[in-house]
């Protein structure tokens, strides 16, 4: 029982971490109908910015300690992501209005290659450290009930809490602020939103900036866990099944999808894996998502696809 519960808890938390990356996908798809393959590259770029600024700011300003440089680095990285968002909207999306889904997909893929190369050119390609004070040692619960206790990864726990807070903040943003309502209007129908005076381009910049912010948070958390290096952009591939499982247009869907897939793939790897020789995590997540899609082709919480003939 102990191992099962450990794996379950580990899976839930790892799922939350992937949801952080998936949130970016959902936000952008919701507001502009673009499947942003560059999300992984954005996570990497944001994390690189944060790591390098945190390293350079003490050198430039002579500040000591961890809190103030990290805060300034965060602000700096956020500013960088907003600029990136604005540039993407201006140079790429603005010129590809009304194109097919595949074209937009490929354009974002091109953007991801560009960001990969650009980020490594400016910031370098070694492993960089992000130290925001996350706890590194494990926590053992219920040592009396289970032998050795139940292992809970403290860093993952903190990350999961941050992710939850972020989701709640985003939900509140969408529900209760004027901009949030405008975003929902744009997601519903571009033309109707335009006709009542909502500036589409500005909305897109805002959406990509928010996605950039989410990417930054995801980048900091993952960067703190794994170190900031190239493979962070590969995380996007692991977040994709979550997105389609939950539905491309649903924020709670990304979370629920994350929880389901996180648990599913960890349980599969730990208990099913040894029978199959191990290493089954990645394709199991996709096959699980595929299974769900066969039952609900638009994802668990996605909008039903209506085809008009």
């Amino acid at each position, binding site marked *: 029982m102990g191992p099962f519960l450990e794996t379950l808890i580990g899976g839930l938390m790892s799922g939350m971490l992937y949801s952080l990356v998936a949130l970016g996908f959902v936000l952008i798809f919701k507001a502009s109908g673009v*499947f942003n393959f560059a999300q992984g590259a954005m996570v990497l770029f944001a994390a690189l910015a944060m790591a390098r600024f945190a390293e350079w700011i003490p050198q430039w300003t002579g500040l000591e300690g961890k809190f103030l440089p990290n805060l300034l680095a965060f602000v700096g990285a956020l500013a960088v992501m907003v600029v990136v968002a604005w540039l993407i909207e201006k*140079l*790429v999306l603005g*010129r*590809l209005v009304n*194109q*097919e*889904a*595949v*074209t937009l*997909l*490929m*354009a974002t*893929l*091109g*953007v*991801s*290659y*560009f*960001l*990969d*190369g*650009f980020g*490594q*050119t400016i910031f370098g*390609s070694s492993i960089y450290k992000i130290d925001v004070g996350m706890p590194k040692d494990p926590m053992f619960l219920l040592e009396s009930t289970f032998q050795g206790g139940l292992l809970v990864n403290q860093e993952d726990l903190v990350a999961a809490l941050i992710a939850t807070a972020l989701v709640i903040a985003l939900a509140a943003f969408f529900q209760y602020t004027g901009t949030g309502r405008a975003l929902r209007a744009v997601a519903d129908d571009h033309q109707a939103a335009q006709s009542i005076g909502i500036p589409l381009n500005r909305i897109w910049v805002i959406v990509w900036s928010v996605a950039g912010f989410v990417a930054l948070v995801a980048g900091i958390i993952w960067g703190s866990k794994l170190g900031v290096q190239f493979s962070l952009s590969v995380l996007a*591939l692991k977040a*994709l*099944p979550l*997105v*389609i499982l939950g539905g*491309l247009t649903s924020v709670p869907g990304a979370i629920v999808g994350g929880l389901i897939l996180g648990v599913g793939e960890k349980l599969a790897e730990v208990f099913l894996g040894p029978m*199959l*020789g*191990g*290493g*089954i995590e*990645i*394709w199991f997540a*996709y*096959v699980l*998502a*595929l299974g769900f*899609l*066969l039952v609900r*082709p*638009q*994802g668990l919480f996605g909008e039903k*696809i209506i*085809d008009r*003939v």
Partner: protein
Amino acid sequence: MLYRENGQFKTSYRADQQIFPISQDRLAILLILACAFIVVPGLASDYLFRAILIPFLIMSLAALGVNILVGYCGQISLGSGAFMAVGAYGAYNFFVRLPGLPLIPALILGGLCATFFGILFGLPSLRVKGLYLAVTTLAAQFFSDWMFLRIKWFTLDTPSGSVSVSGLQVFGLPIESALSKYLFCLSVLVLMALLAKNLVRGAIGREWMAIRDMDVAAAVIGIRPMYAKLSAFAVSSFIIGVAGALWAFVYLGAWEPAAFSVDQSFRLLFMVIIGGMGSIMGSFFGAAFIVVLPIALNLFLPVLLGLFGISISTAGISHAELMIFGGLIVWFLIVEPHGLAKLWSIGKQKLRLWPFPH
């Protein structure tokens, strides 16, 4: 003035329905084929064969397969790397386990393995559409990655998982030198391209295009979506499987499962998008672009930067390649979303009018 169909009257349905009804087109194609089979072997260096022409030919074949699925039938697929892998390993197993088997049947059998795999992982397309389908095809990709690493039977129980082939020959002629490899790949490509072109011109091709444009309407007028979609997957996977087998046997010689990773799938999709979806010619253009670009950048960039007196490390060149690659893709999609094939057809249109402006 030159490219006119004046005076070319067809007196039978057969003549009217041929692939190249305009005689200038026929002439051009014959010239291109003659150039490819006779002139290029005479002029090209060994390096040009090994590094550019052979990968170009094999990748065009694969792009052709992907174009049939994505461009003609509208099913976005990110699992092409997996189909190549299944074709390669299938052909390898048949080639090595049946000692007397000649090369061409082995390639065909590899293609058939890929067909079965393709139909299996194409089944979700009956229920799932669009971007959701694109992501589910990644399941095929990652499953095949895992399958060839873990199931030792496929790699003949080698401890490392790396396999190799040697001693290829066709009808007694050895396929060892760069020239023989080039001619072999060219022949396979011409044959498969003809097959593909005739398929898309026929009834099945029209069914695919109907499904692509409006699948609900197509179902309403009597086209069976299951048959059309699965046949697209089948034909496409066969072609991609044969291309994968060629890639492994002729180009790589020795390979591991990582040779057919998800990057390969993205590359193929790029070729199709940049070349032009729904166009046989487009597959060739796209493949040429994607194969030649990294090498051209590698050779061109240091020279260009040297002119400005900037020396750059190999890492810098790699990063610059990524940036230029990404930038070019975006630029292309903005400038011509229908790909190079559209430019080609615009060119032909202008040629029809030349020298008149309109």
